[in-house]
């Protein structure tokens, strides 16, 4: 009963995770803020201003459009921009009416709205035709801040956008592979210390087979993600090289097993190689990427775990995903182990 309950638990977790991955919407964000190049009039002002187009992602600007506020920010200095026209839920035109002398060329764009809350586009605008005087100051306008009233959603991240869902598929694959290779490592050590029984060797082989499957899935999900965010199926990156080579090393383990006919010798030699392989896995995936710069999320200032950790919506799906995939992996390993043990017994009977 206990055995069955953790399998059912794992499947339930994965069901929950898959539902969340495919049905939870992405939160709103700002895509870009660009000059349209044309001049326009702002209501109740005579002055002509340059018209800028603000593009949002998943925003709700058609609901109560008059409460939308567009603000530029540099340090503590704020400037409110007048609205010209709300085109649709994600497009709005604003007038650039900053004075000629400004404290900086580069400004963050902030948008507050009753539904979306406060959205930020860092360094969203670069003013080329202004005079810079860092001492310039003016009174900050009063800005009404609204708490966001959104249903459960994943956070918006620039560039990553919808592919953030891959976090719950790609990362747990590697965690599961680590777990399975760890099981295999322990089994190989025990195989070397108890030479008379080959059960530990069967365990090591079964967990490497399932671990390799998860490693391959990790490569595939990572490659798909890279295609959409980096623009290439594969890039030269320490983290990626480490992952590929780890998979090759374990493929070598299976090749070595296939080469040796004597089953006792096979158990011993492949255990020895497996210990080497695990050490290389640690070096390649834990040590080397820290030595070098990497584009991979979570490395060198790229968005990764540290920024996601703060977000409770991702945590609510990511941790169950890790647990669920690990349970599924362990289950698959047990099935594989049972099949291999039966095969071995059948061969002994023949």
């Amino acid at each position, binding site marked *: 009963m206990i055995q069955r309950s953790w399998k059912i638990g794992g499947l339930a977790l994965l069901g929950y995770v898959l539902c969340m991955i495919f049905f939870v919407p992405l939160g709103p964000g700002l895509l870009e803020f660009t000059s349209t190049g044309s001049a326009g009039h702002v209501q109740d002002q005579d002055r002509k201003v340059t018209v800028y187009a603000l593009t949002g992602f998943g925003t709700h600007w058609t609901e109560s459009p008059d409460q939308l506020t567009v603000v530029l920010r540099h340090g503590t200095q704020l400037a409110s921009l007048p609205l010209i026209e709300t085109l649709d839920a994600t497009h709005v035109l604003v007038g650039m009416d900053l004075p000629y002398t400004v404290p900086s060329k580069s400004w963050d764009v902030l948008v507050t709205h009753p539904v979306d809350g406060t959205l930020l586009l860092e360094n969203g605008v670069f003013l080329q035709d202004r005079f810079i005087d860092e001492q310039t100051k003016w009174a900050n306008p009063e800005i009404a801040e609204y708490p966001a009233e959104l249903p459960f959603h994943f956070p918006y991240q620039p560039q990553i956008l919808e592919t953030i869902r891959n976090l719950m598929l790609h990362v747990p694959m590697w965690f599961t592979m680590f777990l399975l290779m760890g099981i295999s490592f322990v089994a190989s050590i025990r195989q*070397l210390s108890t030479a008379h029984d080959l059960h530990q060797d069967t365990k090591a082989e079964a967990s490497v087979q399932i671990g390799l499957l998860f490693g391959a899935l990790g490569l595939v999900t990572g490659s798909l993600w890279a295609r959409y965010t980096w623009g290439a199926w594969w890039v030269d990156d320490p983290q990626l090289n480490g992952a590929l080579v780890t998979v*090759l090393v374990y493929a070598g383990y299976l090749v070595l097993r296939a*080469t040796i006919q004597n089953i006792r010798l096979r158990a011993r030699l492949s255990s*020895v190689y497996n210990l080497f392989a695990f050490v290389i896995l640690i070096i*390649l995936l834990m040590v080397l990427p820290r030595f070098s710069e990497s584009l991979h999320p979570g490395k060198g200032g790229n968005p990764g775990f540290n920024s996601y950790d703060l977000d409770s919506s991702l945590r609510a799906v990511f941790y169950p995903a890790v647990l669920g995939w690990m349970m599924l992996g362990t289950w698959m390993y047990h099935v594989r182990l049972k099949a291999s043990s039966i095969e071995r017994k059948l061969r002994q009977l023949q």
Partner: protein
Amino acid sequence: MSSAAQIRYLVRHAIRVEMRNKHGIAGLAVFAIAAVYTCYQATGMHAERESWNALAWVVLLFTAFNAVSKPWADDASNMRSFLLHTVKPQDWLLARILYYSLMLLGLGALIFAAFLLFLGMDPFTGSGALFFFLGIEATALALASLLAMIQALAARAGGGFSLIAVLGLPLIIPIILVSTRYGMDIMKGIAFGDTAHHLLFLATLTGGFTALGYILFPYLWRD
């Protein structure tokens, strides 16, 4: 006999056997020089530093794989049963690592000299060539410590050269990643002190592989 004396004897014995039949080592030297000459034909006298770097490591790598794939009299099963009763397996592995180290240090020096001769010294500034040579020798040591074990494993499995390549090539990638990066740093003119941690990492790998081999080799060797 103490362990140190035994290792010294085993290394000297291996060298004596090698010298008795010189075509093995001569073949390796010819292979290395011919490989460098092929690179020279492909890139010309003044190779770009990227190709210089890449080719140097590739030639070293292939020479190392060739060196360890030479059949070894001790791998025959009757010889192994004899040694099993006379020598501690750990000593035998250390002797083999030492022997491969000497061989690869020599071949590394030969390859580097051939590279300087054929492909020129253009990429190096100041004492860069010397530091690059240091990197080659550190890599040779790391390769020797890992490949000695892989060679023994492949010989025991009866797999021959293809098995050495299948098992060895993925495993040596950490070494090659560090070496190529170090070589590129030296060629870019980065100060030795700022890139010396690569050498330290290679030394750590060498020590780690030797220790791992020391622990695991007895399991591999016994019947």
